[in-house]
């Protein structure tokens, strides 16, 4: 079976969310959990960062998708001086996700369902729980302050 590339998997993760991905931190930790805890074949390398495992390659891939017009970033105001950046697929991104899903179903039949189930569980967890699970799965802790 062919190995899906990181961009396909990342589109599948973002597309599998019922709503938008709530913040870059959440996306980072979810992908980390999927890689180390669920054996989703992501190639992104993770290292210790201020708030647990972090992948610069994942940041680069997300930026590539934003630049390509496939993922959009939206601002959610949390309070008067604080906001969060959420991520979702654009209409073009959704169309690409459909073709990614079809390709994955042929090459890795169980992967799409596994991803959808895992993302659904992770989406319902709080950020501290997701961070804690990412640290546990990967064995990568936060860098000291």
């Amino acid at each position, binding site marked *: 079976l062919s190995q899906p*590339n*990181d*961009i*396909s998997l990342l*589109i599948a993760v973002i597309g599998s969310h019922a709503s938008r991905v709530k913040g*870059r*931190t959440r996306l980072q930790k979810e992908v980390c959990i999927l890689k180390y805890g669920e054996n989703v074949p992501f190639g992104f390398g993770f290292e210790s*960062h*201020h*708030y647990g495992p*972090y992948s*610069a*390659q994942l*940041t*680069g*891939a997300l*930026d*590539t*998708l*934003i*630049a*390509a*017009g*496939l993922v959009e*970033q939206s*601002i959610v105001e949390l309070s008067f*001086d*604080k*906001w*969060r*950046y959420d991520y979702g697929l*654009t209409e*073009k991104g959704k169309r*690409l996700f459909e073709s*990614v899903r079809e390709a994955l179903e042929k090459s890795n039949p169980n992967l799409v369902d596994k991803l959808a189930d895992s993302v659904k569980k992770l989406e319902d967890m*709080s*950020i*501290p729980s997701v*961070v804690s699970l990412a640290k546990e799965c990967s064995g990568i802790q936060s860098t000291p302050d």
Partner: protein
Amino acid sequence: VIWKGMYDLVYHSEKSRIAEKMLEKALLLSKDDAAIKGAFDMPQYLELNDEKLLSQLEKVTHPDVKHLVAIEDTKRLYEKLPKEKELQEPDFHMTTEFLDALAKDADELSDNLSCRLNDSLKLEAYTLICDIVTSKAPEEIPIDDKDEDGAPIQLSSRSKVVASIKPASVLRIYVKPDCTKAFKMDDLEHKLKELVEGPFDFVTTK
């Protein structure tokens, strides 16, 4: 914001970017030359500097290399085609393979595109040089504060100016002097679209 302005000003400056790509292609064409290979072996590598490298490249007999390293002669500098294109929908419908290669190594992808574009237009090697210039959003910049979950607060969540800096991937094409009429612009645009959107097999060497 200063970082972004300085980065674009210095690293994306048109002429220095063209010169950098010409030097890169000269090195790629000379990679089997004994003197060039030797320059990257220890201990010669420790003494290597730009002038030594240029002087070694000037000795390479390959005619295209001679042309590419004549950087000081401004008339030999490649010309940028006026139309530069953002690699984004709806102008380009990129495959996940292409996007993956773009995210992993834009320089290698640019070289891959250059080689295939010249081949498909039946032009000599590096008559056209493709250059994908990626402009990043600022990476995570934590400020000295944490939110209620204990997560470091990022500068981009306090500054809408910083947050407004968006990533972009722009495709520029440089053409060898005196070769601007060696191809039709319509053919070039058609082939380029085919290459960006078509089947793609890319193996990065990094």
